[in-house]
């Protein structure tokens, strides 16, 4: 695909990333990513170490906290190149989610304790927001924190907690005041996964993976120092956290990576309809990227980014889902046979798995229905 960000500085930055990846990325890991195989923890952990040594774990953090100090433009380029080069995506929970929140709202003690461990990979975080009864309607959560001597006693259940099996810490929304408007009685707490009362039940997904979990909190003691910012202001922090990297939400790097895979699959298939669909989706990615760059230009000129970035989330996920659907079409029956059977072509081995897994894109992080409601309400004033 055509690279749209291609100034001399952009090209130099791309080259730096390529050289780094060429030197550091394990070929076996690269190959797994290229084929769309499910991520293995060891692949991610190893790559995390390389990125840590390079100082690139935290793209959005300021340099004084150990971040990469990249501009928004560089972050987009890095996202694109790292996907293009088949590096495993690092989990967002530490570097992109709780890290920036602690930098903005955390205590000095929290920053000193947690930020270096996020960078080094000593700590792995997971997210405790959703609950069995509160998915899209996050604010109706019912996990309760009752004040006690020196802290809080937390009881409840969290769900869809991705990669909790690898995490030793969780940031968590809990209700600290049940008497006020539902958004106003929520606090954000940092919980040790090995604290007494924390237990985990893996949830098997339809693609056969167990990447998400239910986390049960049974009278878990959380010290006062582990509340982020002010008590009862957790909703504000959660919104800031979920908005996160607004420009990256479209997942352009991921889209292009996926497009490359589908194009590879379609080679020699001689299917005019599939070829046309592939071209349309490539164009959709261009439009997503052009829109991202237009917003980037506004952001660089100091215009604050708002709810309009919901469109990047909607389009990015629509494109990725359409690409996995096209994969299914191109693969045909070959996609249905398990790899273990050894009878299907390597190139199609993860097609069904990825199709199924990617259904989540339009559900999580604010479903696409929620995103459209945000656009209508906050951008169009309806």
């Amino acid at each position, binding site marked *: 695909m055509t690279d749209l960000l291609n100034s001399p500085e952009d090209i130099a930055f791309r080259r730096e990333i390529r050289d780094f990846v060429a030197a550091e990325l394990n070929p076996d890991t690269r190959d797994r990513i290229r084929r769309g195989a499910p991520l293995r923890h060891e692949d991610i952990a190893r790559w995390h170490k390389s990125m840590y040594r390079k100082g690139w774990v935290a793209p959005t953090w300021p340099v004084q906290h150990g971040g990469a100090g990249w501009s928004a433009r560089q972050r987009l380029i890095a996202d694109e190149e790292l996907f293009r080069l088949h590096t495993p995506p690092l989990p967002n929970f530490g570097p992109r989610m709780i890290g920036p929140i602690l930098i903005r709202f955390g205590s000095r003690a929290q920053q000193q304790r947690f930020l270096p461990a996020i960078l080094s990979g000593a700590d792995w975080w997971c997210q405790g927001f959703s609950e069995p*009864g509160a*998915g899209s309607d996050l604010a*109706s959560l019912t996990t309760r924190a009752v004040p006690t001597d020196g802290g809080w006693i937390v009881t409840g259940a969290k769900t869809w907690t991705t990669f909790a099996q690898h995490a030793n810490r969780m940031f968590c929304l809990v209700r600290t005041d049940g008497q006020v408007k539902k958004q106003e009685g929520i606090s954000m707490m940092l919980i040790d996964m090995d604290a007494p009362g924390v237990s985990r039940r893996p949830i098997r*997904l339809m693609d056969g993976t167990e990447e998400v979990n239910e986390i049960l909190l049974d009278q878990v003691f959380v010290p006062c120092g582990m509340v982020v910012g002010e008590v009862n202001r957790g909703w504000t922090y959660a919104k800031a956290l979920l908005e996160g990297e607004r420009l990256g939400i479209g997942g352009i790097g991921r889209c292009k990576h996926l497009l490359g895979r589908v194009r590879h699959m379609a080679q020699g298939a001689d299917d005019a309809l599939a070829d046309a669909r592939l071209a349309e989706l490539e164009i959709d990615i261009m439009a997503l990227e052009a829109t991202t760059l237009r917003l980037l230009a506004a952001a660089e000129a100091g215009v604050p980014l708002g709810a309009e970035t919901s469109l990047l989330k909607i389009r990015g996920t629509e494109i990725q889902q359409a690409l996995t659907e096209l994969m299914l079409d191109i693969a*045909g029956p070959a996609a*249905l046979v*398990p790899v273990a059977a050894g009878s299907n072509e390597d190139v199609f081995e993860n097609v069904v798995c990825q*199709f199924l897994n990617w259904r989540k894109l339009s*559900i999580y992080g604010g479903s696409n229905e929620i995103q*459209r409601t945000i656009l209508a309400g906050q951008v169009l004033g309806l």
Partner: protein
Amino acid sequence: MIRFGLPGEEARLLQDTAERFVADRYGLAQRAVMLARPPQEAPAHWREMAALGWLAAPLPRGVGGLGMAPVHLQGLLETLGAGLILEPYGPAIMNCAATLSRLLPRAQAAGALAPMLAGDRVEVLAASPMGQALVQAEPEGDGWALSGTVPLVPGGAAAHAFWVAVDCGAESALAHVPASKAQVRGFRLVDGQAAASACFDGVSCGPRACFTGAADALAHGADMGLWAALAETSGLIGALCRATLDHVKLRQQFGRPIGRFQVVQHRMADMYMHTEEARSMAQLTAEALEEKDAGVRRRLLSAARVKTDAAARAVLRDAVQLHGGMGMTDELAVGHMVKRLLVLAQTGGSRAAHLKRFQASG
């Protein structure tokens, strides 16, 4: 001639029995136990299905069948599809047995089919999804020497024998090969159905196992197998739609059932329309199977595949979306239905292949 009658008494009884069968035998936990078994094992309730008359139902009376027309079997197949049954009813009966009923002289067919319809023996076709030969046959004495692999044989893991579509020059032909002579690798497809890859390199067929002039029989079997997949798909789409409707009526978000949101309501209306259209196409093609003109029959079957595929895709997308994260798990039926739909979409030929066939027939 398309009649579009309502199902008769006999068809309704068959469907009622199937509904009880599914309720009694195919709870998700019961199904999970079956899925954990090796795919080579005999299909779990195959003899019971034989005893209920289901295996004999679609076959002509003259060869030991019950001679029930597809229109009367649609309810059965829809129910078995919705029930996510794991037995190879489509491949072994609707596709293979139907082929044999046309291929063999009546007495020979009756003899070959008897153990199959009794549930004692499983035999399946080894061919491409649309019935084309993937295996070569070279003359060898009075018979053939085979070579080649069929990468995906639905129902093949537990099969006692294969009817291999072979390319032996001009004629359309089948070779009857005991499973013991082929290299069979059994596995489960993504939906849990037992299948196999079967390699026939070095297999010799004596003259009594070689059958030429099989074009009409293979085409008939392909028609029946495709129709069975369409009917199962129709039932499954309906079940997915009902499950989603139940969910949106119960699931509370933002202080009310999500089914109260207009966007969800309209999405459910779309799912309903797809369900109805898939059922219409299943019924249309059930009638079309009795149509004399093979061109019209195939044209309608291909049309039904294209339309049903579009319906299945839309419904599976929306069903998962409206179930939210719960729809992504292996813990509800939804996910299992979605995987079954993906497999059925390829059974009997893909949408793309049938769109081409439809266009070519115009």
